[in-house]
């Protein structure tokens, strides 16, 4: 005989306070768990979106980020001789040799931070079509003009269109604001030649990015690259892969720290649930004895209590998830370990995060309720009835 769900649900109302506390505890744990995963996923998603699937980025092998990579003029020219580089209608290669540096700007929230400034070639906009000017205009080649990413304008002082920034011994006018829906939003872009001259880096570039002539040509390109003895110190990567790697350190750190914290929390919540369930069992020994006397089997008792525990934790978990999903409206701007400059990203929810959260919830409910349920099922009928 199965014990009806009605019995299980009604019992919640008799121990309202402690049940609510347990639900709240679990909701909190799931909220933190989901939030942490959403943060790490948010960083990765922002950075992966930075790259386009057809683009390749060449950087120095040993470099830990774009700012410590150097490609001299000669080597840049050598790269241009390789096959599979797409060309525009005028047979000009779709290549952008870029100079990447960091400057300090004050954040609106206070304090100084690092912002990436990227000198790009005109082709940069062709090979990165996701970058769109949303306010003002494109910078003029040859002028001391720059455009700022949407996140820069949002988080830093004096970075609105029309204002001026001073760096590289000169003042630059911000003529436009762009939105790329990715990590580029945390950057300031300008004409590469102008920026190179200002920073006295005419000798070479930081990195070189180009578009493949065919989507699947990367492996042939790489083969040709590896055969070239002069380019041994450098390495080509798909642009998406390169930027994804820039997210790995940070994402890993957040995930490890976050999961460590969440596991600790889950111990707390599971123990709380266990204490609650043990008390529930202790208080209902007479009932359990009665039900057994009526003919319900041990297994049904165990299932009933276990179901109660799982239901409590599921409710808590869903509440936690719902609140966590609201985090998607928030974004965080912080220093990215790999690039050493600011990156704005928002919390991102994925189906896998939802599934993991629910699985985690049910685990807590199961672990919290199993032993007490076993105890309930093992009660001796006569003793249970007598304990009134």
């Amino acid at each position, binding site marked *: 005989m199965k014990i009806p769900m009605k019995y299980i649900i009604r019992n919640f109302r008799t121990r309202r306070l402690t049940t609510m506390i347990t639900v709240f505890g679990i909701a909190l744990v799931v909220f933190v768990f989901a939030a942490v995963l959403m943060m790490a996923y948010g960083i990765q998603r922002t950075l992966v979106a930075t790259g386009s699937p057809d683009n390749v980025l060449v950087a120095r092998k*040993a470099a830990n980020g774009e700012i410590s990579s150097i490609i001299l003029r000669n080597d840049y020219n050598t790269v241009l001789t390789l096959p599979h580089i797409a060309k525009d209608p005028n047979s000009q290669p779709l290549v952008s040799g870029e100079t990447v540096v*960091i400057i300090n700007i004050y954040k609106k929230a206070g304090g100084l931070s690092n912002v990436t400034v990227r000198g790009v070639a005109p082709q940069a906009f062709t090979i990165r079509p996701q970058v769109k000017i949303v306010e003002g205009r494109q910078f003029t080649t040859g002028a001391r003009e720059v455009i700022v990413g949407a996140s820069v304008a949002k988080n830093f002082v004096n970075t609105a269109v029309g204002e001026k920034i001073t760096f590289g011994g000169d003042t630059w006018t911000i003529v436009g604001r762009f939105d790329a829906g990715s990590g580029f939003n945390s950057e300031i872009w300008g004409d590469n030649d102008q920026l190179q001259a200002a920073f006295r880096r005419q000798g070479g570039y930081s990195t070189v990015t180009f578009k493949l002539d065919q989507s699947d040509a990367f492996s042939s390109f790489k083969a040709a690259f590896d055969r070239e003895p002069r380019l041994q*110190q450098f390495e080509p990567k798909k642009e998406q892969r390169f930027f994804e790697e820039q997210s790995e350190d940070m994402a890993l750190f957040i995930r490890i720290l976050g999961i460590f914290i969440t596991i*600790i929390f889950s111990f707390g919540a599971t123990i709380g649930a266990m204490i609650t369930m043990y008390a529930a069992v202790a208080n209902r020994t007479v009932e359990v004895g009665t039900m057994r006397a009526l003919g319900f089997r041990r297994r049904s008792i165990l299932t009933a209590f276990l179901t109660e525990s799982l239901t409590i934790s599921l409710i808590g978990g869903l509440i936690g998830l719902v609140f966590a999903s609201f985090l998607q409206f928030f974004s965080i701007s912080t220093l990215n370990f790999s690039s050493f400059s600011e990156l704005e990203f928002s919390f991102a929810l994925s189906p896998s995060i939802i599934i993991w959260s629910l699985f985690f919830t049910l685990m807590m409910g199961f672990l919290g309720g199993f032993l007490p349920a076993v105890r309930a099922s093992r009660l001796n009928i006569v003793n249970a009835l007598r304990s009134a």
Partner: protein
Amino acid sequence: MRILKLILKNSLRHKLRTFLTILGMSIAVMAFGVLRTVVEMWYEGVEAAAPNRLITRHAVSFIFPLPYSYREQIAKVPGIETVSFANWFGGTYIDKNKFFARMAVDPETIFDVYPEFIIDAKELETFKRERNSCIVGYEIAKQYGFKIGDIIPLDGDIYPGKWEFVVRGIYKPRTQSTDATQMLFHFSAVDERMKVEMPGREGLIGWYIVKIKDPNQAGTISDQIDALYKNSSNATKTETERAFTQSFISGLNSLLAAMNFVSFVIIGIIMLVLGNTMIMSARERIQEYAVLKTLGFSGGHLIGLILGESLVISAFGAGLGLFLTYPVVATIAAIVPKGFFPYFFITPTTLILSATSALSIGLLASIFPIQRAIGTKIVDGLRHIG
């Protein structure tokens, strides 16, 4: 104090429940301690900065180099004892995970401006003499097994090419907050090679380290140094080492704020676990409390009993939690490569915060049960069926 015996017996009434409560609390206290330690270690660098050291760097950002020639001019500013410099070399040792700070420095002055790096005089002499030598910090030597005479190969990125440096000394940290994870070698070794391989890149250093005589003069001297180069193409920004270190951390503000927030949430969890237990115990004992009142025990006595039990449990929870924090912190310190967290230790502040949080929770968690016990009339309590 026989009441204490009653308190202890009450706690042991449900051994399993008390054990679980203490366990739950201890794990949360441990997590709080570990999290706070991570946050504190980031700020420790700021705290450990010397008040008589200034850092002069490029005004635009630290990734832009300054001319080596600035040195003589800076040295002429009044109030300065020693001028030294460092250059972030970067590069990779075997793979990117084996990260530690690699600096090209001035061997003659570097240990003068960093007296907390303790080096044997003979080793220092050898280091000064041999241009391709290096001195490594004790922690790095320990982690990677570097011994005097070993060759450390580096794959340069900012300074391209393959490099090799011979270990001629190992420096020890003066305090537990001193960074013992740096690799220091001759700036001239790097500079000479740049002259040949990448002309135009020689004669440039990363930042100046200025040791001043009187820390109170820090502001004045900083302004004076910056005034020298205000209108040049390589303007400088000079600040105390503390401010310089602080500026690195300010980029991480959001992350640190999030971690601090999470520590509070942890405190909340501890409260829930303990509070839950106390409420349950109180509910079961309403009848008993009524009996005690009948016998003549006053409200004050009951408060003492309930509060006492709550504090005993939280004291055990805190104690166990703190006890567990040490091995966890030690494990993290052992696992994370030294270059990322040069030091990782529990500060007294963390210990005190953990202990007081747990005990205040012990106090707070007993409020509701106390209210219940005091507020229930004797006759109602006697009638109550748990």
